[in-house]
């Protein structure tokens, strides 16, 4: 079932065309990535979705025109508030929705263990490591219980090792929760590891140049055979991004 449906979405700032007609779909329980070079307008697309910007084209959710409050948004850096304890950062979205802080804390506290943050409820964000901060930010995002997650390069600021650990962790988390998620990234490996489908964007003005299905079983870090298949897909996407003629990889039937 298609939840989010974008058709020919365009956005320009004055004479600068940023999005030149982007169309994409995200199904229920599907993990979809948008992959593109830096400055391609990926974040602009998210701002259109969250209503921070107005653009042209059709944006529908569950068949109806998109109205606010559908998405839980996780920004590029963790955006944790240094003046709130970790648990109060996690409850932020619920509080904005009007929930009492106490109730929100009770709702969020049981999730700390699953997010590897047990015992750090009362810590300040500055006391956490980079990976823990990202997990706290993701916790803050998912507890809002919106229809869909928007993840804007969530691991971009982490060191390579922590990033790899976080990607694997997110994959296991997604397997057990099956969030409907849209991820922005310019990390090809991250996209292939996490996604069911990948939309590859061109450089600005951005349009979808290729749609890649990733039909590999999960978890995708389990065997050497899986890693080889993933590497082949990565190579194909990289060729597209770098403007080389794509090598032939078998096209997989698109999920619907």
């Amino acid at each position, binding site marked *: 079932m298609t939840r989010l449906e974008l058709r020919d979405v365009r956005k320009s700032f004055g004479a600068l065309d940023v999005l030149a007609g982007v169309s994409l779909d995200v199904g229920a329980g599907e993990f979809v990535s948008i992959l593109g070079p830096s400055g391609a307008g990926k974040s602009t697309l998210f*701002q259109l979705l*969250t*209503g*921070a910007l107005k653009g042209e084209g059709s944006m529908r959710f569950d068949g109806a025109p998109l109205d*606010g*409050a559908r*998405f*839980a*948004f*996780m*920004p*590029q*850096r963790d*955006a944790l*508030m*240094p*003046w709130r304890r970790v648990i109060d950062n996690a409850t*932020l*979205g619920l509080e*904005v*929705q009007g929930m009492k802080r106490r109730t929100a804390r009770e709702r969020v506290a049981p999730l700390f263990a699953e*997010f*590897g943050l047990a015992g*750090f409820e009362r*810590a*300040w*964000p*500055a*006391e*956490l*490591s*980079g*990976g*823990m901060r990202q*997990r706290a930010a993701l916790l803050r995002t998912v507890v*809002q219980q919106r229809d869909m997650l*928007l993840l804007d390069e969530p691991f971009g600021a982490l060191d390579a090792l*922590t990033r790899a*650990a*976080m990607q*694997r*962790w997110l994959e*296991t*988390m997604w397997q057990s929760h099956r969030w409907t998620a849209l991820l922005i990234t310019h990390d090809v490996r991250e996209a292939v590891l996490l996604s069911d489908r990948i939309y590859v964007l061109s450089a600005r003005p951005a349009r979808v140049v290729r749609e890649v299905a990733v039909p590999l079983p999960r978890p995708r870090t389990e065997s050497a055979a899986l890693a080889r298949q993933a590497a082949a897909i990565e190579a194909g996407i990289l060729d597209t991004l770098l403007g080389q003629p794509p090598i032939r990889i078998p096209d997989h039937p698109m999920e619907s």
Partner: protein
Amino acid sequence: MAVSFDPLRRGDAPTSDRFSEEGAGPSPIGESQDNSQSPPLRGVRSDPRSGREANCLASRRTNAPQGGRSAVGTVFAKILPAALAFALLLIAWELYARLGGIAPTVLPAPSRVLAQAWENRAALGENTLPTIGATLAGFACSLLAAFVLSALVDFLPALRRALFPLLIASQTLPLVAIAPLVVLWFGFGLTPKILLVALVTFFPMMVALVEGYASTEREISQMLAAMGAGRWRIFWAARLPSALPYFFAGLRISITYAVVGAIFAEYAGAAKGLGIYMLSAKNNFRPDLVLAAVAVSSALTLALFGLAVLVQRLAMPWERAGRDGKSDPSNEGRP
């Protein structure tokens, strides 16, 4: 030799015995440890140690066992250089006033200032209270006005363009000339003092707050907006807390201006207060009493400064957590 080994002794516990044995030969290291330390060494030594403690959250929270004695020692070592310099200055002054044959009505020795201050403690105290009152009342008004106006300016940028040139102009007014006029207009009561204290402290506080709001991380605002928060909510939840460090930086500076402002106002005309006390002491050729009042006003300023630092610590507990626990490798757990 003992002193040069000393940083290693503290910084590296397992080897400390060996070093103390080596050092014990030429000089009694045990005695030099607590009393005759050279201050810079202490300062250097305490920092790496606290950095190491930060590596473990648990030990940071219960850092008493290692600390007790050395924590007091660290504070002592931090203020020691300043105390020494101050004492040296006083001694030089004392010697110059006594041996230079200078009349006490021109330059009284610090000992005389102190003795006279004690003798006139009742009058000094009586005149200090109104100054404290004027300072706090004026500063409170200034803070309130700065907060309200800064919030308005944050919501209405056009207002900022209208107000800021006026505010900057207000900072160019020479206090010496303005103070008598304000007293002329508003009399000898509390009002002119409040106005003058506000005049010198309002602008720094206003600028601090406005810049503080602007320092809000863009992504925090974006995220709040995506959560459905309105402008008012974003102001309270993000912009105001983001401004706190700026606010306290401004507070520390302007609280020291506030005392000076109050004294200036009293100097221009008042029934009681340190300013008018200084003026009459000067007119009676009592520089010792002028200096005694100056010492009181300095102490008052320092006390208010200390209070501001204390309030900042209480109001921003996360700030210290950030300094101690940053990039803590032991917290990097696997999911």
